[in-house]
């Protein structure tokens, strides 16, 4: 009996002494397994237009890490907070070529390229770094739900006419979702900023 306790203690001590490793980020979404590999959930191909009328697609984000969200410019509820918080992310990454931000409008009828352009300019952000994209409504809603795992629906009874998630989604260079954060909560956005660093170290190592 005593021996077991000693061994147990030794093991515990050995583990305790091991240097704490930075925890790797999880890979979110449904995994599928084929014969010898795990197939992870990835973001589907997409093609939207940004505030400069340029195409933004999976090629735009190829080999890059990006943070995605869903909003609309006339939103009176959570979007302004999301944009305030995303601006913090932007300030962290604006000089980093490996990171982009992709904000999808869920109200493409109102949020035309011109509206998005003005919005981005007034926010004072560069279109090279932070893409505000619009496209076909169905395509935007579909990619939100199936790829980014967030929801958005029209609801005329809601202020602004839409109900949607305030999530920020962290996507890695292989289009895998590595984190989902509440973009209306400063402490969750702090975590996103920290996780972004961990992810950048991971892909650069």
């Amino acid at each position, binding site marked *: 009996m005593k021996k077991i306790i000693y061994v147990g203690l030794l093991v515990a001590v050995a583990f305790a002494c091991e240097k704490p490793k930075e925890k790797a980020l999880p890979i979110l979404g449904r995994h599928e397994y084929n014969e010898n590999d795990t197939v992870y959930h990835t973001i589907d191909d997409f093609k939207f237009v940004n505030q400069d009328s340029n195409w933004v697609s999976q090629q735009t984000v190829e080999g890059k890490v990006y943070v995605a969200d869903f909003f609309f*410019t006339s939103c*009176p509820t959570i979007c*302004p907070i999301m*944009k305030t918080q995303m601006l913090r992310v932007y300030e962290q990454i604006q000089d980093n070529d490996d990171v982009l931000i992709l904000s999808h409008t869920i109200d493409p009828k109102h949020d035309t390229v011109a509206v998005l352009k*003005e919005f981005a300019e007034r926010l*004072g952000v560069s279109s090279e770094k932070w893409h505000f994209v619009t496209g076909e409504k169905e395509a935007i809603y579909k990619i939100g739900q199936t790829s980014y795992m967030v929801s958005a629906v029209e609801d005329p009874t809601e202020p602004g006419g839409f109900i949607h998630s305030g999530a920020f989604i962290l996507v890695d260079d292989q289009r895998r979702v590595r984190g989902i954060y509440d973009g209306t909560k400063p402490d969750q956005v702090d975590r996103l900023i920290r996780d972004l660093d961990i992810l950048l170290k991971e892909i650069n190592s």
Partner: protein
Amino acid sequence: MRVLVLLLTVILFQACSGKTDNNEGSHKENVKLEQYMVEGQQLYMQHCSNCHQADGAGLAQLFPPLKGSDYMFENFEKALCSMKYGQEGEITVNGVTYNQKMPGIPTLTALEVAEISTYIYNSWGNERGLIDVKKAEEVLKNCKN
């Protein structure tokens, strides 16, 4: 002589009582201001701070600041009306233009408008004093929509 003393006493008494009256008045006013500020802050955090931010500084060139806003002080009635009925079109605040539609909150009562107004007009260095419910009622009656 006696009459003079009596007169003096009366005058003194009145002067004193007058003064206490005033004190009580301003004390009441202060309590009311405090109440309005507390209620106003809660309403502000709920309805306004998303855009105008908790510190009243606004956001970039999208949402104008309320802190030190010349527009707010020069357009007192408009500012109160916009809370309930919204506002559209370009405005200039401290030399910067803003053109984001502000949605109104039609369900706000005159008292709530008064509380929010008192809060934003007396926070972050702004100073205008109490805006009571009567004042808000009067302004809201004349809003042009």
